[in-house]
């Protein structure tokens, strides 16, 4: 497949560049560029449509910086529109400076805006797009908006388990998704073991999930690129919000940043269950039912500072810090003796980045980012015993850390009306400490550090060859260097669109991508469940090839749209745990617990049908797929169904806007049951007792791995949102939702037991039976948010 990619890529690139060059010489148009801002807050607007108002309408959409460039014939008139804003017309007479366009928010222009926005995004395939406004009405477990969970409604994107925000994209594992938070990679993306994502919706502008056909500027993970953009703060006035939900308390504050044309935004969340834990353990201690305390919680905080000193330059600083923690401790006193012990688990990210965007010329835009991020998972056991005459203490600690220092430079060059080029480089220094451990008791000390350097350069060409054909052709060259090992690779990328007419487009995309680190993941675990290990001599670099084809069509003046995508993906050199292992912490010989060289295969068909406008909107998404894995050391080397394989997945999501205050939503999700490994028999196995007697225990004989299926999963969620102005004149919202409205007992997992039967006989023989464990009954939730 690689040779085919390479030949196709090279021949298309050469031919198309030639044609595009010829087209350029005939075109007298010049390129204008600029930014689109919210007129009230001064925030850059991403995804805004900018079109020329002449007979030959040309258009574009602003990027993640609010930037656009467009070839026009001067003087030109540009019409700028965005969801929820009043369309604005701007006259342009020269291109000596970037144009600054402010558009006013408005609530009555949705339909006209949406139509024009779609016209210039029709070429987008293999990408699921969401902005925060689109998901506010979707009912969520916990009552709070979670953009990652909302993305699971799209075909080809699923959750690992019920209630989880971990993504499975086209059969990839949770560790094969690259999360870029304002272009900076985030390693750990979950709170509470996946029940919430770390991305606070208060600061999210929107997200794009690339399921295939990655642009050449993106790579590093096999299955998806999750591009998340943050809001900028309000440049003109101080604003904020406070929200209370079942899971957490959150806030946001934004306003002018002190310098001219600057702003800041700070958001934060804190769980409320900490206090429930503390209260419950305090009561238990009071009742002398226990003598320890237990605490669980998480927090996260985001901050962004933006400064636009002039029309050509902007600077941004982002900070994110978030942790989950579970602590168990005992504090005892007896006369003058004191004893303290504690077990603390803490895991999360810290991220700091700075970026500089510059309009070098109307045709050239650059974006440069330097970032530091660190993910760490730490488990500490400490003890201190103090008497009036002596003190004894010790500490055992296990850690897994991934540190990433990256430099990224992205450039856009508008060669001509029909040829836009993107190129850039990315250099990352990574330090893996997959399994650090020390104990002051025994002086054991593992501090293995694996330093790695990842670098990539890319070139991407967007060529509009004919009115019916355009192509994105690119290549990404990647290098990976670590202790005594290196890996060089070329990743061809191609995205070709063939327009049948103005409403219908066909697409073909091809890509190869490499991944230099592997996530060891334990399904269902709350703590210690994500450890990253680097590729090296014993663990090869993973790779993936994907080909996809699709059709997208619009009907009834864009009232309805439909999309079909077919994909086929092969993965190579996958790594996972050996049978029976789910944790490396504290294990100095951790490489022995892994199996590498695995292969993965996914194929499927994705269908999406949407009603886009009006008070009643909605979508139907369906995926038919099959995903397998094969490791020489697992399942006797035979191929088996991947644990997240779901042949059928159907999502119905409908929204009804009753009036300006009330919004209603209904969501129904159906999936084929997850695969599990069945018991097919029982056998005896020997066991030696303390006195040397050998006895024989009954143990299970399992069938092929994942060769049976749990019962099908389905549930109905209902949501309602009420927006109003409260007594103090502040905008406020109530969100109500009912999760699993008809109380389906969906299987979280299956287990076998001879001890769970209702007629269990403690003194007799109990046959083994199969049980399903469920966790989520009908759950009504409410959350309240007030803006100030």
């Amino acid at each position: 497949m690689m040779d085919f990619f390479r030949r196709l890529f090279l021949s298309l690139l050469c031919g198309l560049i030639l044609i595009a060059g010829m087209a350029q010489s005939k075109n007298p148009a010049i390129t204008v560029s600029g930014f689109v801002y919210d007129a009230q807050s001064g925030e850059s607007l991403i995804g805004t449509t900018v079109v020329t108002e002449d007979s030959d309408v040309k258009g574009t959409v602003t990027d993640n910086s609010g930037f656009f460039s467009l070839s026009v014939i001067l003087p030109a008139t540009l019409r700028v529109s965005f969801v929820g804003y009043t369309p604005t017309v701007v006259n342009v007479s020269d291109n000596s400076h970037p144009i600054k366009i402010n558009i006013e928010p408005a609530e009555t222009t949705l339909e006209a805006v949406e139509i024009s926005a779609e016209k210039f995004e029709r070429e987008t395939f293999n990408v699921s797009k969401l902005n925060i406004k689109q998901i506010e009405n979707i009912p969520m477990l916990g009552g709070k908006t979670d953009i990652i969970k909302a993305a699971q409604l799209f075909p080809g994107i699923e959750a690992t388990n019920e209630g989880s925000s971990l993504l499975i994209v086209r059969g990839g594992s949770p560790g094969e998704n690259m999360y870029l938070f304002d272009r900076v990679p985030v390693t750990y993306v979950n709170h509470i073991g996946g029940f919430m994502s770390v991305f606070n919706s208060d600061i999210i502008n929107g997200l794009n999930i690339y399921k295939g056909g990655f642009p050449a500027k993106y790579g590093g993970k096999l299955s998806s690129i999750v591009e998340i953009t943050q809001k900028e703060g309000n440049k003109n006035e101080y604003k904020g919000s406070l929200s209370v939900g079942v899971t957490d308390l959150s806030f946001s504050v934004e306003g002018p940043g002190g310098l001219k044309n600057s702003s800041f935004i700070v958001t934060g969340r804190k769980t409320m269950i900490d206090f429930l834990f503390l209260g419950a353990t305090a009561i238990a201690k009071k009742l002398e039912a226990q003598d320890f305390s237990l605490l669980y919680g998480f927090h996260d905080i985001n901050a962004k500072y933006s400064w636009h000193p002039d029309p050509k330059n902007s600077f941004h600083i982002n900070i994110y810090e978030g942790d989950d923690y579970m602590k168990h401790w005992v504090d005892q006193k007896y006369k003058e003796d004191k004893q303290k012990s504690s077990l603390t688990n803490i895991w999360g990210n810290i991220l700091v980045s700075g970026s500089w965007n510059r309009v070098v010329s109307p045709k050239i835009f650059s974006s440069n980012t330097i970032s530091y991020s660190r993910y760490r998972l730490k488990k500490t056991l400490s003890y201190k015993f103090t008497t009036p005459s002596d003190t004894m203490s010790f500490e055992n600690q296990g850690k897994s850390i991934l540190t990433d220092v990256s430099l990224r430079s992205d450039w856009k060059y508008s060669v001509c009306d029909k040829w836009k080029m993107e190129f850039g480089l990315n250099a990352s220094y990574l330090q893996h400490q997959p399994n650090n451990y020390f104990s002051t008791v025994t002086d054991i000390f593992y501090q293995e550090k694996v330093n790695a350097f990842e670098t990539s350069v890319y070139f991407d060409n967007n060529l509009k060859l004919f009115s019916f054909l355009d192509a994105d052709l690119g290549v990404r060259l990647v290098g990976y260097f670590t202790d005594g090992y290196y890996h060089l690779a070329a990743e061809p990328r191609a995205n070709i669109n063939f327009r049948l007419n103005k409403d219908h487009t066909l697409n073909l995309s091809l890509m190869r991508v490499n991944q230099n680190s592997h996530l060891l993941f334990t399904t269902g675990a709350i703590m210690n469940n994500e450890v990253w290990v680097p590729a090296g001599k014993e663990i090869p670099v993973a790779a993936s090839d994907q080909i996809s084809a699709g059709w997208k069509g619009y009907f009834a003046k864009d009232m309805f749209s439909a999309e079909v995508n077919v994909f086929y993906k092969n993965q190579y050199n996958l790594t996972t745990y050996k049978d029976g292992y789910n944790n490396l912490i504290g294990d100095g010989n951790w490489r022995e617990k892994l199996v590498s060289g695995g292969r993965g295969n996914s194929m499927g068909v994705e269908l999406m049908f949407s009603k886009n406008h009006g008070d009643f909107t909605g979508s139907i998404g369906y995926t038919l797929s099959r995903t397998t894995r094969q490791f020489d050391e697992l399942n006797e080397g035979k191929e088996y169904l991947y644990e997240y394989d779901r042949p059928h997945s159907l999502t119905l999501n409908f929204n009804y806007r009753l009036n300006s205050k009330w919004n209603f939503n209904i969501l129904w999700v159906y999936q084929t049951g997850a695969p599990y490994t069945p018991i097919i028999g029982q056998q005896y196995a020997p066991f030696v007792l303390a006195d040397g007697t050998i006895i024989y225990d009954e143990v299970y004989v399992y069938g092929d791995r994942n060769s049976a299926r749990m019962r099908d999963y389905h549930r109905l969620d209902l949501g309602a949102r009420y927006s109003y102005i409260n007594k103090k004149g502040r905008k406020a919202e109530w969100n109500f939702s009912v999760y699993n409205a008809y109380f389906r007992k969906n299987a979280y997992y299956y287990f076998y037991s001879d001890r769970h039967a209702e007629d269990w006989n403690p003194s007799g023989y109990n046959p083994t039976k199969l049980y399903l464990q469920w966790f989520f009954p009908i759950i009504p939730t409410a959350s309240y948010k007030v803006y100030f």
Partner: protein
Amino acid sequence: MLIDGSEVSMSDSKFVFLVALLCAAIAATSCYKEVQSEFPDIVPVPTVNAILVDGQIITVHVSFAMKPGGETILPVCDNVQILLYENDILTDTLIYTADTLLINSGGYAYYSDVVAKAGNNYSCIITIKDYDTIFCSTEIPYPTMITDARGFHHAGVDQEGTVYPAVEYSFENNPLEKQYYSIVPKGVADEKIGILDIVYIDDPVLLNEGLPIGVFSNNIIEGNSYTMKLNVISGSSESSNGVWFYSIPPVVLELRSITKDYYDFLQRYYLYEQAAFNYEIFIGSMPAHNMYSNVENAYGLFTGYSYSISDTITISYFN
């Protein structure tokens, strides 16, 4: 209350908190239910198990693996011919004999008069009507002597503040030869023997194995001897002057020199149990997998070991 919404303000946060508590309580409830399914019928598969111990007569247990969910224990095979070879010489034909110790696993096994000896190779050819001939083989390792053993009453403290003891023992090592061991700490009290739990492993050799069991190889032992520390508890604890500590009976250590097959089997047994029975939401799941087997044309394990024992070690918190 929410018809026009204008009555609601931040003062309603108490209500929100109550709703949150209620929802959290509902969410915390979960349950399980039986799945009505029948195990598929399978053709009974022979299972051959034997652990040959240096100095003890040889016993082989032959049974059938059956579909689970039945009302009776698994059947043993009563019409089997077992030929025993010692160092490739036919030595004995085993005899089907009742054994009350095996009442929970069929009540019968096949016995030989031959006493297993360290350093010898033993193999069996087993014939069952209508089944392929079964073959299994093992060589019993020579014992490794425990050269020293002692105890500590204050080895560490668990997360609940309870002090746990440790035992330390030394044994000879040949770094040029790959050797496998199972260390069994036994608590001896009132003529009753129990196996103590090995906890909070901090010995480098055991940590290197990655499992909380006393099964290890000499893979990373470089010298001619090694001293290993085992933190052990028996499950009972007491307090003195406000300090809780685990109390354990006198300890005898049994160091078993085991085959590579037995080493793999014991590790796999532990992992099998983790995958089969420890599926908890906070711990996470592991794919289920089968037991280790080194028997051709059947399930089961055919292996052996020799052993040495330490002097009795008495550990008291007050010493």
